[in-house]
């Protein structure tokens, strides 16, 4: 039996399409209602907030999760990133009001006073920290684009897909922090102790490479 944690919200539908494609029975999740735990075939599914999925895997409640690498990086939990599903592609970027000085450009501002609004304070500190800049992180849980308009922050670090929301709020991308996509991750112990079942169920065996959730199986 494998336990797979899936994100609630808009990514759940894409995850189910992906699982169906590789032959994992998951019809029980099509109308989950308020249920959060489902069992079908040899898989137990857990539904959780995207940001919590890495923790479920870390603490051993789930063997695997389909989670964005943005939340995996933000949690900083040591997990095994088994493959990139190619779903949910977007970018994690630094954005600021159009025409404003880049918040980290040398000599433009005192680095001590840079204020960054973000859902990702850990990534933000590490990203700016690698340049010797220590920003003041304002941790918000949504509508990050509002922060510069309200003068709460000088810039934001957030995920961008089409860029429409940024443009609508008169913001522009200054730098890309990292590309983001949905990854299949496992705990180190599950990746080692349950490898055969993980491979055969989700990564495709050498005989059945088309049954891999990776866009191009390496097995």
């Amino acid at each position, binding site marked *: 039996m494998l336990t797979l944690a899936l994100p609630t919200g808009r990514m759940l539908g894409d995850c189910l399409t992906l699982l169906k494609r590789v032959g994992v029975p998951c019809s029980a999740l099509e109308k989950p209602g308020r249920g959060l735990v489902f069992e079908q075939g040899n898989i137990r599914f857990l539904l959780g907030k995207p940001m919590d999925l890495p*923790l479920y895997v*870390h603490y*051993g409640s789930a063997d695997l999760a389909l989670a964005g690498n943005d939340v995996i990086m933000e*949690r*900083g*939990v*040591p*997990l*095994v*990133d*088994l*493959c*990139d599903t190619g779903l949910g592609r977007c970018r994690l970027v630094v954005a600021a009001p159009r025409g404003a000085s880049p918040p980290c450009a040398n000599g433009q501002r005192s680095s001590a006073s840079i204020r960054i609004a973000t859902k990702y304070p*850990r990534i933000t500190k590490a990203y700016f920290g690698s340049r010797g800049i220590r920003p003041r992180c304002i941790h918000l849980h949504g509508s990050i684009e509002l922060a510069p308009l309200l003068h709460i922050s000088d810039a934001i670090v957030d995920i961008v897909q089409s860029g429409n929301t940024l443009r609508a709020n008169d913001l522009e991308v200054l730098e890309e922090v990292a590309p983001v996509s949905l*990854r299949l991750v496992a*705990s*180190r*112990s*599950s*990746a*080692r*102790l349950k*490898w*055969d079942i993980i*491979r055969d169920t989700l990564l495709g065996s050498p005989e059945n490479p088309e049954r891999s959730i990776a866009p191009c199986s*390496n*097995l």
Partner: protein
Amino acid sequence: MNAPTGFTDRGGSESMMREKLSRKFLDTFCNFGFQVFQPSPVQPLEDVFRCLPSGFRKKVIPFAGPGEGQRCLIPDVTLAAISYVTSHHAPEERPLRLCYVSSVYRIPDPPEDRVESLHAGAEMIGWEGEAADVEMMALMMRFLDYAGGPETTIVFGDVNLTEFVLGLAPPSAAASLRLALLTGSITEYNAILDSHPLPESARQSLRNLPFLKGGPEVLDRSADLLPENAPLADLKKLVASVVSFGFTSRIKIDLGLVRKLDYYSGPVFEVYDGCSGGPVGGGGRYDGLLASSGVLGQAFGFSLELDAFAENRGSACRGARDPVMLWAGDSPVMDVFNTADRITAAGFSVEISWNPGPKASFSLSRRRGCICWVDLPRQTVKTGCQDGTVTLDQWLTESPTC
């Protein structure tokens, strides 16, 4: 006053369990000629930094003074053990067998916040040949049977083999591939492979490496998937020895296994607890580290996190003694201790109750979860699973347990 974040004051069943596990570990190894090593909790920062990989240095907790030089809290006992061996023992005294139970201090990975953990480990230094590795594994498995039960699993890899395969890539790519294996990012590993021009056979061997996981049969399969001259022999011998002890179902192979401590130079392994499924320690051959300290020869060691075993099992210790309360009443002290000795000799632990009245003593024994309450003045025993009472002599003869 509470312990600061990252540290814990312990008591109750967990600290009892830590103590029992520590004692059992040292007994297991001391019975086979291992000497107990007690490292100082403070180590010279410069020496520690010189021996630890850069990725591990950020886990070290440095502090200043007293005295000259920078210090740090001990992050790894093996380094201290080697330093001790080289400065206290002549070459002709080898092989040297050391075992220890010691706290180590590391800045943890998120989301954990524990800085201090209790490690039990052993080092065999200066014995040439595979027998040393096998002896260490056999003793470790004996301890794991006691502490972790039959569900504990050992995952084997081999640093020489991993380095051999990574060596098929150009040096700059090999370093990135090693880092990707260390951080567990197979996605990144594959992306690096895709971005470097490589001969097809080398690419395929590199591609296979992180996927060569599973039971011991992976070693046979690997011969077909890796270059013909890949150094699999050492690992095969070690795994065959552990299989011969009857542990086949508890062995896994991961040929992409890279340990955070990079001083290993041969077969390596990690131990996974059957209860929590989490990693609880590991070890392997570290001849290279020994050589860097000016000592030529073979070295093999491991360490296990006793806290993990203690937490997972709480008071359900294998071999734990059932507690008995002995009410002394107005009996002479000598009689009390003689009776206590008889009770412990029968396989129980005993708590002496000096309460003036039996009622308070009996109720305390219930609160403590004692299986029996001994009324010494009356020479009787009340047990939780028997109606009425039995005489002390009868109870000790039959040693009833519930």
